[in-house]
């Protein structure tokens, strides 16, 4: 039985489903239909190179005909929003991160635009609790910025959706400035979500290619560490003081250690990053938030409180379910009873409310 929460919840990682990439065909300009041919369609967009032993979707939402509940807004509304009292569900897509993995970047940008029109029509129009993320082809930053300007003003769109790892160059590279400028210009946040190491987003890790999905799941945190350091050290937050980002599905227990390492390095190596005015950890606390899913599960749940204490702020964690994926976190079981009510409320709602500027409950 699902227990209804007694307080509003923001779910910062929900994957709206799509039955087939061909759903985007009606939204694409004619010039791009050439790639919807028999040979290309099965490889569109760049595919996840890793196989999951059970499949990436919860078995309890899959139907005999092969569809699943996540493909139907009405079912997600009932099964997730109504069931758990979720007031804001940040939709971060299916396929969208792999658009940035495609070497044929201009077509990828057209696919992203089609996706956004599909998202607005098929999902955001259904329920205002669905909040949209702008799909972009980040390997083409100027086209990405144009797309952010095109749809970023929609009242239910709250952020720009980017993959971690980045396309070829680290996210701190100047090449991506147009994306940060457009996000700030439109009052949008940036959501970095783990992405399959496909196409331009490979290789899976700095140690090459792990040979199990289990390793890949652990590598995600390493990708986020590298990406976060790139953003901080290359001065993206110093250059864009209004930029706010959330890191989804990469964990957070590693964050204190990364803060300590960067602050220690800053004492010794400040002259290499003279544009940083404050300790690197300050930029992280001011600009970065972390999704809770998959929740860290230390053997003693009280150790979660120690980690949060080490973060130096109780405002950095945003609750997320990762619906409908196999490692879905339900609000009740995911947050252990040792978390005080005030902290639980921050993680489940207030931190996201403040981060996204959601209306007060």
């Amino acid at each position, binding site marked *: 039985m699902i227990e209804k929460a007694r307080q509003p919840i923001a779910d910062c990682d929900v994957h709206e489903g799509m039955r087939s990439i061909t759903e985007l065909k009606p939204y694409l300009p004619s010039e791009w239909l050439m790639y919807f041919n028999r040979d290309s369609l099965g490889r569109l967009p760049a595919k996840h190179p890793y196989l999951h032993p059970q499949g990436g979707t919860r078995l309890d939402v899959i139907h005999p005909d092969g569809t699943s509940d996540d493909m139907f807004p009405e079912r997600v509304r009932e099964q997730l929003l109504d069931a758990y009292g979720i007031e804001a569900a940040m939709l971060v897509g299916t396929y969208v991160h792999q658009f940035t993995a495609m070497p044929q970047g201009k077509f990828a940008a057209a696919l992203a635009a089609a996706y956004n029109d599909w998202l607005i029509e098929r999902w955001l129009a259904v329920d205002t609790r669905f909040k949209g993320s702008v799909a972009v082809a980040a390997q083409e930053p100027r086209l990405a910025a144009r797309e952010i300007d095109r749809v970023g003003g929609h009242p239910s769109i709250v952020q720009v959706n980017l993959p971690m790892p980045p396309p070829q160059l680290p996210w701190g590279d100047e090449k991506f400035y147009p994306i940060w400028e457009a996000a700030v210009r439109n009052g949008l946040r940036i959501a970095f979500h783990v992405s399959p190491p496909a196409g331009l987003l490979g290789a899976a890790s700095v140690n090459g290619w792990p040979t199990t999905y289990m390793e890949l799941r652990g590598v995600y945190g390493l990708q986020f560490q590298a990406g976060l350091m790139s953003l901080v050290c290359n001065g993206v937050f*110093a250059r864009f003081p209004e930029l706010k980002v959330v890191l989804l599905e990469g964990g957070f227990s590693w964050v204190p250690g990364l803060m300590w390492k960067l602050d220690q390095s800053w004492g010794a190596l400040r002259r290499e990053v003279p*544009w940083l005015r404050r300790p690197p950890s300050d930029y992280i606390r001011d600009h970065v938030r972390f999704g809770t899913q998959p929740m860290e599960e230390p053997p003693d749940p009280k150790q979660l409180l120690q980690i949060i204490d080490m973060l130096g702020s109780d405002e950095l964690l945003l609750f997320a379910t990762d619906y409908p994926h196999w490692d879905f976190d339900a609000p009740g079981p995911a947050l252990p009873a040792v978390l005080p009510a005030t902290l639980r409320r921050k993680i489940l709602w207030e931190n996201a409310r403040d981060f996204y500027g959601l209306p007060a409950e």
Partner: protein
Amino acid sequence: MTFLCKRDELAPGEKRAFDVGRVRIVLCRRGDDFFALRDVCPHHGANLSMGVLTGTNVESEVGEYRYGRDGEVLRCPRHGWEIDITTGRALHDPEHRRVKAYRVVQRGDDVLVEV
């Protein structure tokens, strides 16, 4: 006041360690001015006098480098902490990390320190 040396014994841009009673200090010369700090890095305790008296890349726009403060920065020989010789404060965290600075007086050709 304790006599340290004659002016000409330390050229501009040079530094040298002195024992003043039980206190070891490092005397630095920038142009015609002298500055004295306790010769102990506030980080791990290395002798700053074994480091480099230099300038550094000062605060700049993102992606740009600008050298400045030449001769005002004493860089620790171990982890490279940068100490402002005029204040004893660490450049990266001036509010919290500092080494004691002593008053230096020039009297004729003599350089004296108040420890």
